[in-house]
């Protein structure tokens, strides 16, 4: 087995491929554009993917368990609006933040209960919630952005620590923590059993309902955190932010090795998937390509990733 086996035991095949791709891409791009390998550019990439990268941590855990959440974009905006309204009403910063996060948690709880207890398909449930949550935030915000948020609050989105913007730290911290937990924690690994074979998971004594509710609350909370960071960065709560984001997050997770049927995927993979998409978008910008091409490229990468999956599965099945 040797070196290759050692490497493989640390990082799964899919993740190795992505790291390799990113390295090759990075090297290629550094020749194409002199700006690529500069810190401001890399920071821009990381900042740009901080929202989706953070949410992807929770989304991949949900996907591994066999569910998905289409409402994260709306939850993100909802948290921003709730916190924004609280702040402009004079509520202290920390309490406003907690209010926003509680709203996110509420969304996650409702999603979790509907899917776990009422056994409604997670696609339909969260699709409904996506629309409902968006509606709620539009109503309470009166259809307009909440502006002029206090500086103490905006610091968490605009501030820097050692010259790196805070949202980047949050994302990296959550990715590292999430990946560690999904590999090493008995509790978090229950998601693999649940997604791989729900009946077997129950038989092993896993409390499937509680786990699902936990997963939905987690991803909603992460959406809430991202919402706060985003709102703080721009200094105002947008009512339109987050639309269509959930599909990009799911795309990143799938490129990273997750499967819609559950039981597969990793946090590291999801992050690498998001990073790949972010680097690609950045590269296209640096090369002066029209923004419209980005969707096309993202879509192509997703299809290639899935076809690659299917072909390797098929080759393995034939060998049996």
């Amino acid at each position, binding site marked *: 087995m040797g070196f290759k086996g050692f490497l493989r035991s640390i990082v799964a095949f899919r993740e190795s491929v992505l790291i390799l791709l990113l390295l090759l891409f990075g090297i290629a791009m550094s020749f194409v554009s002199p700006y690529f390998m500069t810190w401001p550019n890399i920071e821009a990439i990381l900042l740009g993917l901080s929202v989706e990268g953070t949410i992807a941590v929770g989304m991949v855990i949900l996907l591994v368990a066999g569910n998905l959440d289409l409402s994260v974009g709306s939850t993100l905006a909802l948290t921003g609006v709730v916190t924004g309204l609280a702040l402009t009403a004079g509520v202290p910063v920390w309490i406003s933040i907690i209010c926003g996060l509680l709203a996110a948690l509420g969304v996650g709880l409702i999603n979790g209960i509907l899917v776990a207890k009422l056994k409604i398909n997670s696609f339909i449930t969260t699709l409904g919630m996506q629309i409902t949550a968006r509606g709620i935030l539009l109503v309470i915000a009166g259809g307009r952005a909440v502006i002029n948020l206090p500086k103490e609050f905006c610091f968490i989105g605009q501030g820097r620590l050692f010259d790196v913007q805070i949202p980047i730290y949050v994302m990296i911290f959550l990715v590292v923590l999430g990946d560690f937990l999904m590999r090493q924690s*008995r509790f978090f690994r229950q998601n693999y059993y649940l997604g791989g074979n729900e009946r077997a998971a*129950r038989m092993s004594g896993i409390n499937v309902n509680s786990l699902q509710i936990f997963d939905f609350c987690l991803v909603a909370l992460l959406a809430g955190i991202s919402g706060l960071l985003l709102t703080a960065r721009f200094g105002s709560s947008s009512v339109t932010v987050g639309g269509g984001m959930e599909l990009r997050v799911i795309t990143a997770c799938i490129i990273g090795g997750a499967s819609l049927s559950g039981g597969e995927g990793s946090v590291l993979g999801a992050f690498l998937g998001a990073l790949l998409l972010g680097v690609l978008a950045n590269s296209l910008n640096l090369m002066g390509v029209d923004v419209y091409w980005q969707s096309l490229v993202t879509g192509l990468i997703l299809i290639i990733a899935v076809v690659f999956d299917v072909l390797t599965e098929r080759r393995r099945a034939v060998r049996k």
Partner: protein
Amino acid sequence: MDDSTILKVENLTKTFPGVRALNKVDFELKKGEIHALIGENGAGKSTLMHIIGGVLKPDSGKIMLEGKPVSFSSVHDAIKAGISMVFQELSLVSSLSVGENIFANRQPVGAMDRIQWGKLYRLTKEFLQRFKLDLNPKTLVKNLSMGQQQTLEILKALSSNPKIILLDEPTSSLTEEEIAHLFENIRALQKQGMSFMYITHKLSEVFQIADRVTVLRDGNYIGTRPVNEVSENNLISMMVGREIKSMYGTSKEMVDSEEYFRVEDFARKGRFRNISLSLRKGEILGIAGLVGAGRTEFARAIFGLDSKDSGRIYLDGRLLNIRRPKDAIREGIAYITEDRKNLGLFLTLTLRENCIAPILEKFSSRIGLLKGALVDQHVENQTREFSIVAPSMYQKVINLSGGNQQKVLLAMWIGIRPKVVIFDEPTRGVDVGARADIYAKLRELSSKGTGIIIISSDLPELLGMCDRILVMHQGEITGEVGRADFSEEIIMAYATGLANSIANNNHTA
């Protein structure tokens, strides 16, 4: 063997909407015995086992484990009490490793709930070695063969150190060798005091492994006998409630019947080569062979489902051009798959819709609308003719028993009024009563002139039904045996490649 009883079930009743699955059933398992549970589909065997295993709760009745009454609210409860069940459908997670599956949710953990991987894999290796299973504990389950997966399933049940193990048809996907290993392991565990409850359709297994056998019929307890005091016929009549004198019927003597169907020089690289056969009108031809011999691939190539590199088909002297199933159906050739659940039936559709699937044009008006009355009549006829037991023709096929599902599959294809039918494993997973019905139907078809080819791994079935048997081994025909020379030994010799009369005599069948 200790004589005390470890598990006792009294007056167990379980009713599902519309059907009484168990009716005041008694059952007793002695410590250290291997107790077989048999019965037709719908007899209640799985229900009984599911209740003992904690999957279902009985409506009434008592369960006593080691003299104490117990009641399980989940499978997990039953496992904790020492009763471990091995299901027919696998309960493994294919994307995880062998070790992670055996220690599902019981992984050794250190501080902060962190998994101790080194310890987990070491314990797994020790455990595997105890049962002489040569596997790398880090292998992902999806990379194991079906047989290995099923063996792993059983090991998983053993890992919780149970007192009683419940096995529900554990050998359905195992090779001969794997079955032998399984029986060795079961006997070894029995010596250590473990008790087994074993559901199977294969009566031969009952005589190989069990100490006592209990028969259920229609949810009722019929009787329990020591295995060395019953014969297979006794068991069959207990299961079915009537004498089945000759399961396979008798063939009519073929007097100068002309050749009806001929296949020449079928070959496909890597699958089969030099396959030729001829079938006379009213003849039943069998094709025997081990798994992987190429029989199914060959049949599918005839039917136009898979491609072939060369080969010609003649029906009644006329050369046929079959490139896809549509052509085969038009020419009156039917192929009935061995995998009825995935490749044959439309499980989520009704009995009615399944029956007419290959012949929709026959029931369509000129503008393509289905004529309901014609369909109803056809389906009623088929249901009667094939003795299909279902509450109504609108019943979803997934809710029917295995035997009835197989009958629906037959009705579906016989409905095209075929001239030649190729049956691939006609009675796999089918209970005794339905089997007899299916064999009777085959006899009837052949007596009316339909050419019948049976591909089967069930030697007694082939020996009982066929006039001639071809044997394939690794893609070639190695022998042809006529009724006068029928014996299991000869066929197995050809099937394993130990004998090859075709290569030796240098002629094709």
